[in-house]
């Protein structure tokens, strides 16, 4: 009887340990808990994040970029999106832009050319939006399943809003073979 009771309490301890382990593994990780708040929208509509608004006006893909006299090629395709972005109630800038594919891989905007519009270099005042283009290099197979992500902080997008705009490209192999240019940011007047 005494032995049975001891075995019972040993089992109880084991059960408690197993439960604790199960709770710990079932808990979402901090990365998940602190993920950005998505603001989802479509191409052609204004999407309002906490500090800025963004609209993808047009999106295209091409095999190369033409920057001045330089031609930048890629082993995948270049995604070029024309954006109209603005500050909401306080001056702000967009400092993070990337495209996420259906496999959850995230491709940041290229750093082979300077893209002031989305790298924090362009502070916008409320009511005075800017237009310009950004370029992202992605594998051809990913080009058909991209979502554009924009946020106002370059190194930490946690616990803040992030726009998620599904890009309207259906097939990466149908992209233009001609090099395309990238429009500089310009105040909308």
């Amino acid at each position, binding site marked *: 009887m005494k032995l049975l009771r001891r075995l019972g309490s040993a089992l109880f301890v084991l059960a408690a340990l197993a439960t604790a382990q199960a709770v710990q593994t079932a808990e979402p990780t901090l990365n998940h808990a602190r993920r950005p708040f998505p603001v989802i929208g479509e191409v052609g509509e204004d999407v309002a994040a906490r500090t800025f608004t963004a609209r993808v006006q047009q999106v295209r893909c091409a095999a190369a970029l033409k920057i001045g006299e330089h031609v930048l090629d890629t082993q995948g395709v270049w995604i070029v999106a024309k954006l109209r972005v603005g500050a909401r109630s306080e001056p702000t800038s967009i400092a993070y832009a990337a495209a996420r594919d259906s496999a959850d891989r*995230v491709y940041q905007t290229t750093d082979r050319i300077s893209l002031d519009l989305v790298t924090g270099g362009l502070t916008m005042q409320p009511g005075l939006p800017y237009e310009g283009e950004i370029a992202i290099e992605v594998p051809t197979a990913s080009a058909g399943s991209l979502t554009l992500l924009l946020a106002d902080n370059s190194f930490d997008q946690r616990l803040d809003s992030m726009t998620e705009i599904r890009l309207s490209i259906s097939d990466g192999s149908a992209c233009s073979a001609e090099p395309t240019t990238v429009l500089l940011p310009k105040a909308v007047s």
Partner: protein
Amino acid sequence: MLADVSVTGRGGLSRRLTRGLVDQAAPGLRWAVAVVLLGVSGLFGGLDTVADPRAETVAAGTPVPGGPWEVTVHEAGVRRELGKLRLQKENDRWLYVIATVRITATESTMPPSDLLVLEGATGLVKPTPAEAALERDGSRLRLLHPEMPERIWFVWEQSGDAPVPTSLTISIEQRTYREDSLGGEWQWMDADEKGDDPPAGRVTVPVKADLTPPSASPSPGAGPSPTAGPSASARPRPSVNPKPSRSPSAGPTQ
């Protein structure tokens, strides 16, 4: 519960404490408890086989996974001239390593400057590469994107007084996806906080020496001459272009 554990004796306190606890819970069952504990730790992975932490040395052409990246070293060589790169001292030479870097993390990543560390080469002007450039267009290595592998030339300047190595061992830096002990989030980081991780792997490659005398015909300004040597013009050379600047892009366009 701990009444019969003496804390006055010197040493052996923890042993006595444990024994006291065990005896309290199950007198005479020490061995049984030990076996159960071992079994429990086994349930949660305590008996799993752990990979040998010593880095393996592999041959050229073998991919080495280093956490967020995978590096395949193809070849190494030494040159007097390399594209438009300028040596700090005329007498020095370039050591280069050509490797394919593939980002296996899920987000675009900038490889660190010490991604490749040369072992067995003396007289390096700087331990990190003087230049790292994409082979296909000579642009400087910056962000690399997931699953878009690039062949990259890593270039070091070696003092002309140091011996020309016949082979190089390249150790490949690694990162571990782990919980940040400060913020509690999972990130690619050094495996331990001190940052002296073992490399992900080592690759030993023979060095192709192409040391055509820089001034066979005594022209002192050897830099701009376009043909460095027969093999140099045959293979693509990393001509490190400055970032294409798009006119005065900083100013407002109104």
